[in-house]
């Protein structure tokens, strides 16, 4: 079954469009009707990052009539290793603008609707309501639960994909008969347990693989062809290059799509237990300027880098010693509680945890370097590489 309007109500194709989409039109399973369905389709992409890049490019090329993009981020140099929707010239630009320009160049027949916002419990229903289906390319658990619940409430299919390092997952949630995200993962992991791509890294090609699975499923749903990835979770392992599907079942006691006890959107930050700011705000902190001044003044202090060895290899603050957070407990006895200890990581979250561990071990003269090595590079020593 296809999504959208009955065949007689589908928009016609212009001569330009017939030429452009000729390789679709000559596939019997797509044909003119399938292409008209694509033209009539309204697809919302949540996120124009790693997954959103191939999704946006290929759905636009395929002729999806209206592509909404929800994204509030700005293009950063570190995005370009995988976010092929954006170019070097776009660094510093809003991603929705960069995406719109690229898609217009690729296919002027596509209407791009830029939603320059983060998706929130306040705006999600109003935004998603205007579309036929949602493609989830977000990068955090809170937004994934939000997208799921909004799609369940509105009855919109949610084409899901997520990635981490070398592995990805994809499926289609929220169809009338299929399971939803909460059927698969009833609760999110505690904050900090599963690192984001920014923290843990991702093979740049992986979002290409998984995003194109999502784009493929989107086109199939719109055209009503093939077997949709409903009730099956596709697991992609780029290292072993294995694709396997496991069975997903609708959970009758799921509060979203089963019992339907979730009747409105909730506070998803709270649901995901996100209190990062508190975590870093409540430990003693030192600014990079203060650290620089104290070191220049010849102060005796121990500077400790709690990142992992492969990050240490990228760059470090001179004079630091390495004690990764993952094995910090073992390193505790090597610290001297009589000396001042300043800890840093990439941006300050992990070192805040290390400060807490030292405090619990009885250390009193211990500080978290605010903003981590990234801020040190920005404000004090630009020769330290950013990553």
């Amino acid at each position, binding site marked *: 079954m296809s999504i959208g309007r009955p065949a007689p109500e589908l928009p016609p194709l212009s001569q330009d469009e017939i030429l452009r989409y000729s390789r679709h039109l000559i596939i019997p399973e797509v044909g003119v009707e399938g292409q008209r369905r694509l033209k009539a389709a309204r697809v919302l992409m949540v996120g124009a990052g790693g997954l959103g890049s191939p999704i946006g490019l290929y759905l636009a090329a395929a002729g999806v009539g209206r592509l909404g993009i929800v994204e509030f981020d700005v293009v950063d140099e570190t995005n370009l290793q995988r976010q092929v929707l954006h170019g070097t010239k776009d660094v510093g630009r809003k991603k929705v603008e960069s995406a719109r320009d690229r898609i217009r160049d690729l296919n002027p027949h596509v209407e791009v609707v830029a939603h320059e916002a983060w998706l929130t419990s306040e705006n999600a229903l109003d935004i998603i309501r205007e579309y036929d289906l949602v493609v989830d390319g977000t*990068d955090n658990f809170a937004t994934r639960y939000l997208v799921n619940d909004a799609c369940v409430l509105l009855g919109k299919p949610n084409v899901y994909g997520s990635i981490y390092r070398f592995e990805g997952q994809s499926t289609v949630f929220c169809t009338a008969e299929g399971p939803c995200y909460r059927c698969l993962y009833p609760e999110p*992991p505690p904050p900090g347990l599963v690192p984001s791509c920014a923290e843990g890294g991702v093979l740049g090609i992986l979002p290409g693989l998984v995003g194109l699975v999502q784009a493929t499923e989107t086109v199939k749903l719109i055209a009503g062809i093939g077997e949709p990835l409903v009730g099956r979770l596709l697991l992609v392992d780029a290292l072993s290059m294995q694709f396997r599907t496991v069975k997903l079942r609708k959970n009758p006691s799921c509060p979203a799509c089963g019992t339907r006890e979730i009747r409105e959107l909730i506070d998803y930050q709270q649901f995901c237990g996100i209190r990062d700011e508190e975590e870093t705000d409540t430990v003693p902190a030192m600014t990079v300027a203060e650290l620089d001044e104290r070191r220049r003044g010849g102060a005796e202090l121990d500077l400790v880098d709690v990142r992992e060895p492969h990050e240490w290899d990228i760059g470090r603050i001179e004079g630091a010693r390495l004690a990764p957070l993952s094995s910090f407990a073992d390193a505790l006895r090597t610290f001297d509680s009589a000396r001042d200890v300043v800890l840093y990581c990439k941006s300050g979250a992990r070192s805040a945890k290390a400060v807490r561990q030292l405090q619990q071990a009885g250390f009193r003269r211990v500080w978290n370097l605010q903003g981590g090595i990234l801020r040190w590079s920005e404000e004090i020593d630009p020769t330290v590489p950013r990553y």
Partner: protein
Amino acid sequence: MPVTLRLPTVLAKAAGGTTVHEARGATVGEIVADVAGRFPELGPRLRDAKGEPYPYVIFYLDDEDIRFQQGFQTPVPDGAEIVVVPAIAGG
């Protein structure tokens, strides 16, 4: 015939750097206990303090979700494969 426990790469570090482990046991819980016994860091990543699975780490026995069977008490046939699928959110 032993059972294969297949971990995601993200958990390999806690399991001696390897994702594929052979194990013995009559139930999924026993298989998990067998592998976790060899790698103390891995145990808490696969099950909570009470020994139960987390809601964000899913176990598939021959591609079927054990939550719709008998959870960690699900019997494991010889030569079966258990795949561990943790929630990830990157995009």
